[in-house]
Protein backbone atom coordinates (compact mmCIF):
# COMPACT_ATOMS: atom_id res chain seq x y z
CA UNK A 1 0.00 0.00 0.00
CA UNK A 2 1.28 3.44 -0.90
CA UNK A 3 1.25 6.17 1.62
CA UNK A 4 2.10 9.82 1.85
CA UNK A 5 3.96 11.64 4.58
CA UNK A 6 2.40 14.83 5.87
CA UNK A 7 4.93 16.87 3.95
CA UNK A 8 4.20 15.00 0.74
CA UNK A 9 0.47 15.49 1.17
CA UNK A 10 1.03 19.17 1.71
CA UNK A 11 3.19 19.47 -1.40
CA UNK A 12 0.58 17.69 -3.46
CA UNK A 13 -2.35 19.76 -2.18
CA UNK A 14 -0.45 23.03 -2.51
CA UNK A 15 -0.41 22.65 -6.28
CA UNK A 16 -4.19 22.99 -6.39
CA UNK A 17 -4.58 25.75 -3.79
CA UNK A 18 -4.22 29.49 -4.34
CA UNK A 19 -1.80 31.15 -1.95
CA UNK A 20 -1.28 34.82 -1.24
CA UNK A 21 1.44 36.34 0.92
CA UNK A 22 0.77 38.75 3.76
CA UNK A 23 1.62 41.77 1.59
CA UNK A 24 -1.02 40.75 -0.92
CA UNK A 25 -3.43 40.11 1.95
CA UNK A 26 -2.86 43.54 3.44
CA UNK A 27 -3.45 45.17 0.08
CA UNK A 28 -6.59 43.08 -0.49
CA UNK A 29 -8.01 44.01 2.93
CA UNK A 30 -7.63 47.69 2.07
CA UNK A 31 -9.78 47.35 -1.04
CA UNK A 32 -13.50 47.98 -0.91
CA UNK A 33 -14.23 44.48 -2.28
CA UNK A 34 -12.11 42.89 0.40
CA UNK A 35 -12.02 39.17 1.07
CA UNK A 36 -13.47 37.71 4.23
CA UNK A 37 -10.50 36.80 6.38
CA UNK A 38 -11.14 33.65 8.38
CA UNK A 39 -8.63 32.74 11.07
CA UNK A 40 -8.73 28.99 11.60
CA UNK A 41 -6.33 28.75 14.54
CA UNK A 42 -7.34 27.35 17.91
CA UNK A 43 -8.83 29.66 20.51
CA UNK A 44 -5.65 29.91 22.60
CA UNK A 45 -3.66 30.98 19.53
CA UNK A 46 -6.29 33.50 18.44
CA UNK A 47 -6.37 34.93 21.96
CA UNK A 48 -2.71 35.96 21.59
CA UNK A 49 -3.43 38.25 18.68
CA UNK A 50 -5.36 38.54 15.42
CA UNK A 51 -5.67 40.64 12.31
CA UNK A 52 -8.28 43.36 12.72
CA UNK A 53 -11.57 42.35 11.11
CA UNK A 54 -10.73 38.64 10.97
CA UNK A 55 -13.39 36.08 11.83
CA UNK A 56 -12.48 33.22 14.08
CA UNK A 57 -13.59 29.79 12.95
CA UNK A 58 -11.30 27.05 14.27
CA UNK A 59 -10.14 24.38 11.81
CA UNK A 60 -12.14 21.67 13.52
CA UNK A 61 -15.42 23.50 12.90
CA UNK A 62 -14.60 25.05 9.53
CA UNK A 63 -16.53 22.75 7.22
CA UNK A 64 -19.51 22.61 9.55
CA UNK A 65 -19.96 26.34 10.07
CA UNK A 66 -18.53 27.97 6.94
CA UNK A 67 -21.92 27.97 5.25
CA UNK A 68 -23.33 30.17 8.02
CA UNK A 69 -20.49 32.63 7.56
CA UNK A 70 -20.06 32.58 3.77
CA UNK A 71 -23.32 32.06 1.93
CA UNK A 72 -22.06 32.96 -1.55
CA UNK A 73 -19.78 30.15 -2.80
CA UNK A 74 -17.99 32.61 -5.13
CA UNK A 75 -17.23 35.23 -2.46
CA UNK A 76 -13.52 35.92 -1.90
CA UNK A 77 -12.22 34.23 1.24
CA UNK A 78 -8.72 34.31 2.75
CA UNK A 79 -7.77 31.67 5.29
CA UNK A 80 -5.17 32.32 7.95
CA UNK A 81 -3.48 29.99 10.43
CA UNK A 82 -0.26 30.33 12.39
CA UNK A 83 2.21 29.38 9.64
CA UNK A 84 0.22 28.76 6.46
CA UNK A 85 0.16 24.97 6.61
CA UNK A 86 -3.24 24.20 8.08
CA UNK A 87 -4.86 26.67 5.70
CA UNK A 88 -3.57 24.80 2.64
CA UNK A 89 -5.49 21.70 3.66
CA UNK A 90 -8.47 23.80 4.77
CA UNK A 91 -8.56 25.60 1.42
CA UNK A 92 -8.72 22.29 -0.42
CA UNK A 93 -11.59 21.23 1.80
CA UNK A 94 -13.52 24.40 1.01
CA UNK A 95 -12.84 23.96 -2.69
CA UNK A 96 -14.38 20.50 -2.43
CA UNK A 97 -17.44 22.15 -0.90
CA UNK A 98 -17.72 24.36 -3.95
CA UNK A 99 -16.06 27.54 -2.72
CA UNK A 100 -14.36 28.96 -5.80
CA UNK A 101 -12.39 31.92 -4.50
CA UNK A 102 -10.42 30.73 -1.46
CA UNK A 103 -6.80 31.68 -0.80
CA UNK A 104 -4.43 30.37 1.86
CA UNK A 105 -2.29 33.06 3.46
CA UNK A 106 1.30 31.86 3.13
CA UNK A 107 3.25 32.18 6.35
CA UNK A 108 0.04 32.80 8.29
CA UNK A 109 -0.26 35.08 11.28
CA UNK A 110 3.44 34.65 12.06
CA UNK A 111 4.41 36.21 8.73
CA UNK A 112 1.86 38.99 9.24
CA UNK A 113 3.41 39.86 12.59
CA UNK A 114 6.98 39.58 11.26
CA UNK A 115 6.11 41.97 8.45
CA UNK A 116 5.33 44.53 11.13
CA UNK A 117 1.65 44.75 10.21
CA UNK A 118 -0.79 45.81 12.93
CA UNK A 119 -2.67 43.25 14.96
CA UNK A 120 -4.90 43.32 17.98
CA UNK A 121 -5.63 41.13 20.96
CA UNK A 122 -9.23 39.97 20.66
CA UNK A 123 -11.70 40.55 23.42
CA UNK A 124 -12.90 37.17 24.52
CA UNK A 125 -15.54 35.82 26.82
CA UNK A 126 -14.27 34.39 30.06
CA UNK A 127 -14.64 30.64 30.63
CA UNK A 128 -17.62 31.34 32.91
CA UNK A 129 -19.23 33.52 30.25
CA UNK A 130 -18.55 30.96 27.55
CA UNK A 131 -20.44 28.39 29.58
CA UNK A 132 -23.24 30.75 30.61
CA UNK A 133 -23.94 32.08 27.13
CA UNK A 134 -23.23 28.93 25.11
CA UNK A 135 -26.82 28.69 23.83
CA UNK A 136 -26.43 32.20 22.47
CA UNK A 137 -22.93 31.96 21.05
CA UNK A 138 -23.59 28.73 19.17
CA UNK A 139 -26.08 30.59 16.99
CA UNK A 140 -24.37 32.37 14.09
CA UNK A 141 -26.71 35.37 14.56
CA UNK A 142 -25.13 35.91 17.97
CA UNK A 143 -21.72 34.27 18.22
CA UNK A 144 -19.06 35.52 20.61
CA UNK A 145 -19.03 38.90 18.89
CA UNK A 146 -22.75 39.27 19.42
CA UNK A 147 -22.50 38.24 23.03
CA UNK A 148 -19.80 40.85 23.52
CA UNK A 149 -22.16 43.42 21.97
CA UNK A 150 -24.80 42.43 24.51
CA UNK A 151 -22.27 42.74 27.33
CA UNK A 152 -21.35 46.21 26.07
CA UNK A 153 -24.95 47.34 25.63
CA UNK A 154 -26.65 49.89 27.87
CA UNK A 155 -30.40 49.59 28.07
CA UNK A 156 -32.75 51.81 30.04
CA UNK A 157 -36.06 50.61 31.42
CA UNK A 158 -38.71 53.21 32.21
CA UNK A 159 -40.57 51.53 35.04
CA UNK A 160 -39.78 48.30 36.85
CA UNK A 161 -43.35 47.12 36.93
CA UNK A 162 -45.35 44.67 34.85
CA UNK A 163 -43.43 45.22 31.60
CA UNK A 164 -40.12 46.16 33.21
CA UNK A 165 -39.96 43.02 35.36
CA UNK A 166 -39.71 40.39 32.62
CA UNK A 167 -37.65 42.77 30.49
CA UNK A 168 -35.10 43.32 33.26
CA UNK A 169 -34.88 39.62 34.04
CA UNK A 170 -34.43 38.51 30.42
CA UNK A 171 -32.04 41.34 29.58
CA UNK A 172 -29.97 40.41 32.62
CA UNK A 173 -30.07 36.72 31.75
CA UNK A 174 -29.01 37.58 28.19
CA UNK A 175 -25.97 39.37 29.57
CA UNK A 176 -26.88 42.94 28.67
CA UNK A 177 -24.05 44.58 30.55
CA UNK A 178 -25.67 47.76 31.82
CA UNK A 179 -29.32 47.98 32.74
CA UNK A 180 -30.67 51.31 33.91
CA UNK A 181 -33.87 51.28 35.92
CA UNK A 182 -36.04 54.35 36.39
CA UNK A 183 -38.72 53.97 39.01
CA UNK A 184 -39.71 56.03 41.99
CA UNK A 185 -42.14 53.55 43.54
CA UNK A 186 -41.77 51.07 46.34
CA UNK A 187 -43.06 47.51 45.99
CA UNK A 188 -46.68 47.03 46.97
CA UNK A 189 -48.42 43.71 47.68
CA UNK A 190 -50.70 44.32 44.69
CA UNK A 191 -47.64 44.39 42.38
CA UNK A 192 -46.68 40.76 42.97
CA UNK A 193 -49.52 39.44 40.78
CA UNK A 194 -47.43 40.41 37.72
CA UNK A 195 -44.18 42.18 38.64
CA UNK A 196 -42.12 39.02 38.84
CA UNK A 197 -38.78 40.65 39.58
CA UNK A 198 -40.02 41.56 43.08
CA UNK A 199 -40.49 39.21 46.04
CA UNK A 200 -42.64 39.10 49.15
CA UNK A 201 -39.59 40.31 51.03
CA UNK A 202 -39.41 43.35 48.69
CA UNK A 203 -42.66 44.91 49.90
CA UNK A 204 -42.14 48.55 50.88
CA UNK A 205 -38.63 48.52 49.40
CA UNK A 206 -37.79 50.74 46.40
CA UNK A 207 -38.43 48.83 43.19
CA UNK A 208 -35.03 49.72 41.77
CA UNK A 209 -33.33 48.14 44.80
CA UNK A 210 -35.51 45.05 44.78
CA UNK A 211 -34.82 44.60 41.05
CA UNK A 212 -31.10 45.13 41.57
CA UNK A 213 -31.04 42.32 44.18
CA UNK A 214 -32.86 39.90 41.88
CA UNK A 215 -30.51 40.67 38.99
CA UNK A 216 -27.45 40.30 41.22
CA UNK A 217 -28.63 36.78 42.08
CA UNK A 218 -29.02 35.99 38.41
CA UNK A 219 -26.00 37.36 36.60
CA UNK A 220 -22.87 38.99 38.00
CA UNK A 221 -21.98 40.32 34.53
CA UNK A 222 -24.75 42.90 34.73
CA UNK A 223 -24.30 46.33 36.20
CA UNK A 224 -27.58 47.81 37.39
CA UNK A 225 -27.91 51.58 37.55
CA UNK A 226 -30.87 52.56 39.70
CA UNK A 227 -32.52 55.91 39.06
CA UNK A 228 -34.95 56.21 41.93
CA UNK A 229 -36.74 59.18 40.48
CA UNK A 230 -39.62 60.13 38.28
CA UNK A 231 -38.46 60.83 34.77
CA UNK A 232 -39.15 64.48 34.06
CA UNK A 233 -38.48 67.09 31.39
CA UNK A 234 -35.59 68.22 33.59
CA UNK A 235 -33.75 64.90 33.90
CA UNK A 236 -34.86 62.95 30.81
CA UNK A 237 -32.01 63.97 28.48
CA UNK A 238 -29.39 63.39 31.13
CA UNK A 239 -30.69 59.92 32.02
CA UNK A 240 -31.65 58.68 28.53
CA UNK A 241 -28.48 60.12 27.00
CA UNK A 242 -26.40 57.56 28.91
CA UNK A 243 -28.05 54.56 27.23
CA UNK A 244 -28.17 52.96 23.78
CA UNK A 245 -31.88 52.24 23.76
CA UNK A 246 -34.96 52.55 25.93
CA UNK A 247 -37.80 50.20 26.88
CA UNK A 248 -40.96 51.97 27.91
CA UNK A 249 -43.00 50.31 30.61
CA UNK A 250 -44.54 53.35 32.21
CA UNK A 251 -48.12 53.58 33.43
CA UNK A 252 -49.25 57.03 32.37
CA UNK A 253 -49.60 59.18 29.26
CA UNK A 254 -47.46 62.17 30.33
CA UNK A 255 -44.46 59.83 30.77
CA UNK A 256 -45.17 58.11 27.44
CA UNK A 257 -45.14 61.40 25.53
CA UNK A 258 -42.11 62.64 27.48
CA UNK A 259 -40.06 59.52 26.85
CA UNK A 260 -41.11 59.50 23.19
CA UNK A 261 -40.08 63.10 22.64
CA UNK A 262 -36.80 62.71 24.53
CA UNK A 263 -35.86 59.57 22.57
CA UNK A 264 -36.81 61.16 19.25
CA UNK A 265 -34.85 64.32 20.01
CA UNK A 266 -31.82 62.28 21.13
CA UNK A 267 -32.17 59.79 18.27
CA UNK A 268 -32.43 56.78 20.61
CA UNK A 269 -34.58 53.78 19.65
CA UNK A 270 -37.62 53.40 21.91
CA UNK A 271 -39.24 50.02 22.35
CA UNK A 272 -42.71 50.97 23.44
CA UNK A 273 -45.39 48.71 24.84
CA UNK A 274 -48.54 48.94 26.86
CA UNK A 275 -51.03 46.56 28.39
CA UNK A 276 -54.60 46.69 29.62
CA UNK A 277 -56.79 43.83 30.81
CA UNK A 278 -56.24 41.12 28.18
CA UNK A 279 -54.72 43.34 25.47
CA UNK A 280 -51.15 44.30 24.78
CA UNK A 281 -49.31 46.19 22.07
CA UNK A 282 -45.65 46.59 21.22
CA UNK A 283 -43.73 48.53 18.59
CA UNK A 284 -40.33 50.15 18.02
CA UNK A 285 -40.11 53.90 17.51
CA UNK A 286 -36.81 54.66 15.84
CA UNK A 287 -36.90 58.09 14.28
CA UNK A 288 -33.14 58.06 13.65
CA UNK A 289 -33.79 55.26 11.14
CA UNK A 290 -36.71 57.10 9.59
CA UNK A 291 -39.42 55.30 11.55
CA UNK A 292 -42.50 56.85 13.12
CA UNK A 293 -42.81 57.91 16.76
CA UNK A 294 -45.52 57.63 19.41
CA UNK A 295 -46.99 60.96 18.29
CA UNK A 296 -47.28 59.68 14.71
CA UNK A 297 -49.40 56.83 16.05
CA UNK A 298 -51.31 58.77 18.70
CA UNK A 299 -51.12 62.50 17.89
CA UNK A 300 -52.82 63.63 21.11
CA UNK A 301 -53.32 62.04 24.51
CA UNK A 302 -56.78 61.13 25.75
CA UNK A 303 -58.41 63.53 28.19
CA UNK A 304 -57.71 62.51 31.81
CA UNK A 305 -59.97 59.72 32.97
CA UNK A 306 -61.15 58.73 29.49
CA UNK A 307 -58.80 55.78 29.14
CA UNK A 308 -58.60 53.73 32.32
CA UNK A 309 -55.27 52.36 33.50
CA UNK A 310 -54.55 48.95 34.93
CA UNK A 311 -55.22 50.17 38.47
CA UNK A 312 -58.82 50.91 37.48
CA UNK A 313 -59.39 48.36 34.72
CA UNK A 314 -57.08 45.56 35.75
CA UNK A 315 -54.62 43.49 33.77
CA UNK A 316 -54.05 39.77 33.50
CA UNK A 317 -50.80 39.25 35.40
CA UNK A 318 -49.09 37.18 32.73
CA UNK A 319 -49.96 39.62 29.92
CA UNK A 320 -47.12 42.07 30.65
CA UNK A 321 -44.92 38.96 30.86
CA UNK A 322 -45.65 38.28 27.19
CA UNK A 323 -45.45 41.88 26.03
CA UNK A 324 -42.38 42.77 28.13
CA UNK A 325 -40.68 39.70 26.71
CA UNK A 326 -41.50 40.84 23.17
CA UNK A 327 -39.92 44.20 24.01
CA UNK A 328 -36.82 42.35 25.17
CA UNK A 329 -36.64 40.39 21.92
CA UNK A 330 -36.72 43.68 20.01
CA UNK A 331 -34.01 45.15 22.26
CA UNK A 332 -31.72 42.18 21.68
CA UNK A 333 -32.33 42.29 17.92
CA UNK A 334 -31.40 45.97 17.83
CA UNK A 335 -28.25 45.36 19.87
CA UNK A 336 -27.18 42.42 17.70
CA UNK A 337 -28.34 44.17 14.50
CA UNK A 338 -30.15 41.02 13.37
CA UNK A 339 -33.60 40.43 11.97
CA UNK A 340 -36.26 42.98 11.17
CA UNK A 341 -37.17 45.33 14.01
CA UNK A 342 -40.81 46.27 14.67
CA UNK A 343 -40.22 49.73 13.23
CA UNK A 344 -43.41 51.03 11.64
CA UNK A 345 -45.30 47.96 12.77
CA UNK A 346 -47.39 47.51 15.87
CA UNK A 347 -48.04 44.02 17.15
CA UNK A 348 -51.26 43.65 19.09
CA UNK A 349 -51.96 40.66 21.28
CA UNK A 350 -55.51 39.81 22.23
CA UNK A 351 -55.11 37.22 24.97
CA UNK A 352 -58.80 36.36 25.21
CA UNK A 353 -59.05 35.59 21.52
CA UNK A 354 -55.55 34.09 21.46
CA UNK A 355 -54.61 36.23 18.48
CA UNK A 356 -51.63 38.29 17.41
CA UNK A 357 -52.22 40.93 14.76
CA UNK A 358 -49.88 43.35 13.07
CA UNK A 359 -50.71 46.89 11.97
CA UNK A 360 -48.72 49.40 9.97
CA UNK A 361 -47.72 52.60 11.72
CA UNK A 362 -46.72 55.28 9.24
CA UNK A 363 -44.56 58.27 9.87
CA UNK A 364 -46.67 61.42 9.97
CA UNK A 365 -44.99 64.08 7.80
CA UNK A 366 -46.72 66.70 9.98
CA UNK A 367 -45.59 65.14 13.26
CA UNK A 368 -44.62 67.94 15.67
CA UNK A 369 -41.58 65.94 16.86
CA UNK A 370 -40.27 63.85 13.96
CA UNK A 371 -42.07 65.40 10.98
CA UNK A 372 -40.69 67.66 8.27
CA UNK A 373 -41.23 70.89 10.19
CA UNK A 374 -41.03 69.97 13.85
CA UNK A 375 -42.49 72.40 16.35
CA UNK A 376 -41.46 70.46 19.46
CA UNK A 377 -37.69 70.83 19.58
CA UNK A 378 -37.24 70.67 23.33
CA UNK A 379 -39.06 68.92 26.15
CA UNK A 380 -42.31 70.53 27.24
CA UNK A 381 -44.60 70.29 30.25
CA UNK A 382 -46.17 66.89 29.72
CA UNK A 383 -48.59 67.05 32.63
CA UNK A 384 -50.07 70.13 31.02
CA UNK A 385 -49.96 68.56 27.56
CA UNK A 386 -51.99 65.64 28.92
CA UNK A 387 -54.27 67.90 30.93
CA UNK A 388 -53.50 66.26 34.25
CA UNK A 389 -52.79 68.04 37.52
CA UNK A 390 -49.12 68.33 38.40
CA UNK A 391 -47.79 65.60 40.62
CA UNK A 392 -45.81 66.70 43.58
CA UNK A 393 -42.18 66.54 42.62
CA UNK A 394 -40.38 64.47 45.21
Amino acid at each position, binding site marked *: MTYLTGAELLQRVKRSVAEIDVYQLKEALERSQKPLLIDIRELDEWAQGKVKGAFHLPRGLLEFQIENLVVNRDAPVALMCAGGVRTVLAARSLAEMGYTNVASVAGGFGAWKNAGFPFETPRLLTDEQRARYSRHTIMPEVGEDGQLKLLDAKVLLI*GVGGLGSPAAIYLAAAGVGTIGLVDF*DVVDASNLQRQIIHRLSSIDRPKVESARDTIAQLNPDVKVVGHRAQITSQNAFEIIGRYDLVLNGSDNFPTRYLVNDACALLGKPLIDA*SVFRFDGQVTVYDTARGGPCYRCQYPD*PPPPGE*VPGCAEGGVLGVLPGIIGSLQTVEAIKLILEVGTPLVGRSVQYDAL*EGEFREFRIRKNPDCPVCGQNPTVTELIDYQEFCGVPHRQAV
Partner: protein
Amino acid sequence: MTTVRIPSPLRRYTNGQAKVTVPAGDISTLIDNLEAAYPGLKGRLCDESGQIKRFINIFVNENEIRTLQGEASAVTDADEVSIVPAMAGGH
Protein backbone atom coordinates in the same frame (compact mmCIF):
# COMPACT_ATOMS: atom_id res chain seq x y z
CA MET B 1 -71.45 43.19 6.82
CA THR B 2 -67.99 44.14 7.97
CA THR B 3 -66.30 42.61 10.98
CA VAL B 4 -65.16 45.12 13.59
CA ARG B 5 -62.76 44.22 16.38
CA ILE B 6 -63.61 45.87 19.65
CA PRO B 7 -60.82 46.48 22.20
CA SER B 8 -61.43 45.31 25.75
CA PRO B 9 -62.08 48.80 27.23
CA LEU B 10 -65.02 49.24 24.84
CA ARG B 11 -66.53 45.78 25.09
CA ARG B 12 -68.98 46.88 27.72
CA TYR B 13 -70.82 48.60 24.87
CA THR B 14 -70.95 45.39 22.84
CA ASN B 15 -72.15 43.02 25.57
CA GLY B 16 -68.59 41.77 25.95
CA GLN B 17 -68.23 40.80 22.30
CA ALA B 18 -64.69 41.10 20.88
CA LYS B 19 -65.97 41.04 17.30
CA VAL B 20 -69.18 42.51 15.94
CA THR B 21 -70.49 42.86 12.38
CA VAL B 22 -72.20 45.92 10.97
CA PRO B 23 -72.94 47.21 7.46
CA ALA B 24 -70.25 49.59 6.29
CA GLY B 25 -69.30 51.25 2.99
CA ASP B 26 -66.99 53.74 4.59
CA ILE B 27 -65.73 54.44 8.09
CA SER B 28 -68.26 57.12 9.01
CA THR B 29 -71.15 54.88 7.96
CA LEU B 30 -69.59 52.05 9.90
CA ILE B 31 -69.36 54.20 13.04
CA ASP B 32 -72.98 55.35 12.69
CA ASN B 33 -74.07 51.74 12.28
CA LEU B 34 -72.02 50.76 15.31
CA GLU B 35 -73.76 53.48 17.30
CA ALA B 36 -77.18 52.27 16.14
CA ALA B 37 -76.44 48.72 17.22
CA TYR B 38 -74.39 49.57 20.33
CA PRO B 39 -75.47 52.97 21.68
CA GLY B 40 -72.72 54.98 23.35
CA LEU B 41 -69.89 53.59 21.27
CA LYS B 42 -69.65 56.54 18.89
CA GLY B 43 -69.07 58.93 21.78
CA ARG B 44 -65.99 56.91 22.71
CA LEU B 45 -64.58 57.04 19.19
CA CYS B 46 -65.48 60.54 18.03
CA ASP B 47 -65.45 64.00 19.54
CA GLU B 48 -68.45 66.37 19.47
CA SER B 49 -67.63 67.48 15.94
CA GLY B 50 -67.66 63.87 14.75
CA GLN B 51 -63.89 63.64 14.24
CA ILE B 52 -62.14 60.44 15.30
CA LYS B 53 -60.36 61.11 18.57
CA ARG B 54 -56.65 61.50 18.10
CA PHE B 55 -55.68 58.82 20.62
CA ILE B 56 -57.70 56.19 18.78
CA ASN B 57 -56.40 54.25 15.82
CA ILE B 58 -58.87 52.69 13.43
CA PHE B 59 -57.35 50.22 11.02
CA VAL B 60 -58.87 48.87 7.83
CA ASN B 61 -57.03 45.57 7.71
CA GLU B 62 -53.46 46.66 8.58
CA ASN B 63 -53.72 50.31 7.51
CA GLU B 64 -54.66 53.20 9.78
CA ILE B 65 -57.43 55.38 8.34
CA ARG B 66 -55.36 58.58 8.74
CA THR B 67 -53.03 57.10 6.12
CA LEU B 68 -56.05 56.26 3.90
CA GLN B 69 -58.94 58.72 3.41
CA GLY B 70 -59.79 59.26 7.07
CA GLU B 71 -63.47 58.79 7.86
CA ALA B 72 -64.20 58.53 4.14
CA SER B 73 -61.98 55.46 3.82
CA ALA B 74 -63.80 52.73 1.94
CA VAL B 75 -64.67 49.53 3.75
CA THR B 76 -65.97 46.41 2.05
CA ASP B 77 -67.47 43.30 3.56
CA ALA B 78 -64.15 41.56 2.96
CA ASP B 79 -62.26 44.07 5.11
CA GLU B 80 -61.71 43.80 8.80
CA VAL B 81 -61.79 46.95 10.90
CA SER B 82 -59.86 47.13 14.20
CA ILE B 83 -60.26 49.80 16.84
CA VAL B 84 -57.06 50.31 18.85
CA PRO B 85 -57.04 53.01 21.50
CA ALA B 86 -53.87 54.28 23.16
CA MET B 87 -53.20 52.41 26.38
CA ALA B 88 -50.92 53.73 29.08
CA GLY B 89 -50.64 50.64 31.26
CA GLY B 90 -47.27 49.10 31.85
CA HIS B 91 -46.83 48.89 35.59
